């Protein structure tokens, strides 16, 4: 991502309802959960915080919400410094991984909670809750209790509850983490559409790179309490800034000194000087796509992604000796961070 785009995001975030986090550090005892983290989220954007568990992504989200107090650094929401403001006064919408539904309240009362706290009138509350129930497609469920809802319905209720108070920003902590695969997929698409309608600045935490790439406009990759890289889904995939991002966003294999994506490998029957010898362990047909599993001479294994036509043309079979060459690959400096060369 170019510097000018970075600058643009920062300026855009300050100008309106965006979020700026600057130099935030958070320790739990000896464990450093966040180490000098700075991020900028533009107004109205949909941003994913992506990283493995323990990378600090949830902690960062909780710091933005005010559920955790940072040891150092600042949080700006719409250009206002909210670092010392209590969670109650930040006007953020927060959606918890396990819903945090108020079990003793109906769907209606759950969604109305924030409005009641703000002392709004009954008529106004009823109208607003009705709108939100329509928004999240829970019509007819108003009088149900959370334990009478499915996981997906509970999560939608939690979302409506967070949106009810018209938050400046919407924060979602692994929002689909506790749901099964099919519901997850539906909710992703639905969240994408919802964001197009509501347009509130949104950050969601996920450990699933596919989810991040499908839903988000901007992805911030985190590892070991630090930001590895931020940018659009395509930037991250095609231009990873570190070995970690290369391996975490999309599949990648080490081939000699460099890293390569499985679809960026050419297979030939004859050597041409730049190629490496390999043995085909297995040719796996997955429909249109074919996965060829290979072992190199040094015992390293990796797989290559080809189309059915390519495999038929080359007549690849189990047990053949072939020669492979990366079509494009990336090499990182020994500490695994700065991209040194792009072949």
């Amino acid at each position, binding site marked *: 991502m170019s510097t000018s785009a970075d600058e643009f995001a920062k300026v855009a975030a300050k100008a309106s309802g965006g979020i700026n986090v600057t130099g935030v550090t958070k320790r739990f005892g000896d464990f450093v959960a966040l180490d000098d983290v700075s991020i900028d989220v533009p107004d109205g954007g949909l941003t994913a915080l992506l990283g493995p568990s323990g990378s600090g992504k949830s902690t960062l989200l909780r710091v933005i919400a005010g559920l955790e107090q940072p040891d150092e650094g600042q949080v700006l929401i719409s250009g206002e410094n909210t670092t010392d403001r209590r*969670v109650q006064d930040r006007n953020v919408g927060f959606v918890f991984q396990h819903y*945090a539904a*108020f*079990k003793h309240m109906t769907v209606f009362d759950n969604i109305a909670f924030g409005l009641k706290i703000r002392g709004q009138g009954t008529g106004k509350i009823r109208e607003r809750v009705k709108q939100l129930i329509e928004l999240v497609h829970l019509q007819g469920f108003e009088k149900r209790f959370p334990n009478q809802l499915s996981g997906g319905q509970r999560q939608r209720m939690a979302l409506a509850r*967070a949106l009810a108070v018209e938050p400046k920003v919407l924060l979602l902590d692994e929002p689909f983490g506790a749901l099964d695969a099919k519901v997850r997929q539906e909710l992703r698409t639905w969240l994408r559409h919802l964001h197009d309608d509501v347009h509130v600045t949104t950050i969601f935490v996920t450990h699933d790179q596919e989810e991040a790439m499908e839903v988000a406009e901007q992805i911030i990759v985190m590892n070991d309490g630090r930001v590895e890289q931020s940018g659009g889904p395509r930037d991250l995939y095609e231009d990873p800034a570190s070995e970690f991002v290369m391996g975490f966003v999309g599949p990648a294999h080490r081939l000699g000194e460099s890293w390569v994506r499985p679809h960026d490998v050419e297979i030939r029957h004859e050597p041409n000087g730049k190629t490496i010898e390999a043995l085909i362990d297995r040719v796996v047909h997955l429909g249109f796509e074919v996965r060829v599993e290979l072992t190199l001479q040094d015992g390293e294994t990796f797989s290559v992604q080809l189309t059915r036509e390519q495999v038929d043309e080359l007549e690849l079979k189990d047990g053949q000796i072939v020669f492979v060459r990366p079509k494009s690959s990336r090499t990182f400096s020994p500490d695994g961070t700065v991209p040194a060369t792009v072949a």
Partner: protein
Amino acid sequence: MSVVNPFARYGMRFAALLYLGLLLAIPLVMIFVKTFEDGFREPLEAVTSEEGLHAFYLTLLCVGIAVPLNTIFGVLCALMIVRDKFPGKSIINSLIDLPFAVSPVVIGLALFLVYGVDGFIGGPLDDMGIQIIFSTPGLVLATIFVSLPFVVREVVPVLQEIGDDQEQAASTLGANAWQTFWRVTLPSIRWGVTYGVVLASARALGEFGAVAVVSGRISGETETLPLLVQNEYDNFNVAGAYAAAIVLAILAVLILLSMNLLRRRSSGDEDEELGLQVVAQPAKEV
């Protein structure tokens, strides 16, 4: 069930039921039989005598003061044990259980030594004209002591179970600590609190030993229902003793019924079984 052969099963069932029958059920039935074997008039007169009514009133007064105070204490204490963190917390957590372990008579003696006329708190209070021991405040104090841990012990596991997700959600929606407590925390633990209140009431109603020490047994003044039972019995008024006992027994059966209803209600409602935490889980680490 499939494993055990039927003879062994019937044998065990018979042994268990016989034991329970001889120890619990038949004696309980007997007290009803004995009370009413000469008709209803005599026991009714004994219960509605001035002495009987006063004892009943005094018992209810003790329960009425001790249980609400211990409920407030219990909820606060449970919140502290589960949500707060400070050195020495686990010691306090263990000390809460002391009233379960200490003999009622020792409890009575303890209160007598501190709040009696010669005690270091009771002495100064006596100079001010406030009498604790051998008077109603002493009875209340003893009742508070014996029923202290029940609400804490019932609420702690419920609080642990629900976690603090809902409280955090409430705070992100703008609720302050006070609003969060009343609107989210308290409704979530209500069945635990209720169960604790029922257990505490049972203990408070029937307390004998501790109350016996601090009461001085001034008939018609510091005599609760359990004390009246003994007094009547010692004075060879067996019918009067049974009459007072039957009132307590009926209350006990009502308490037993509500315990069962509550246990079923909470287990049906939220998939979590409330039990006598006192028994099943000796003070867990928190």
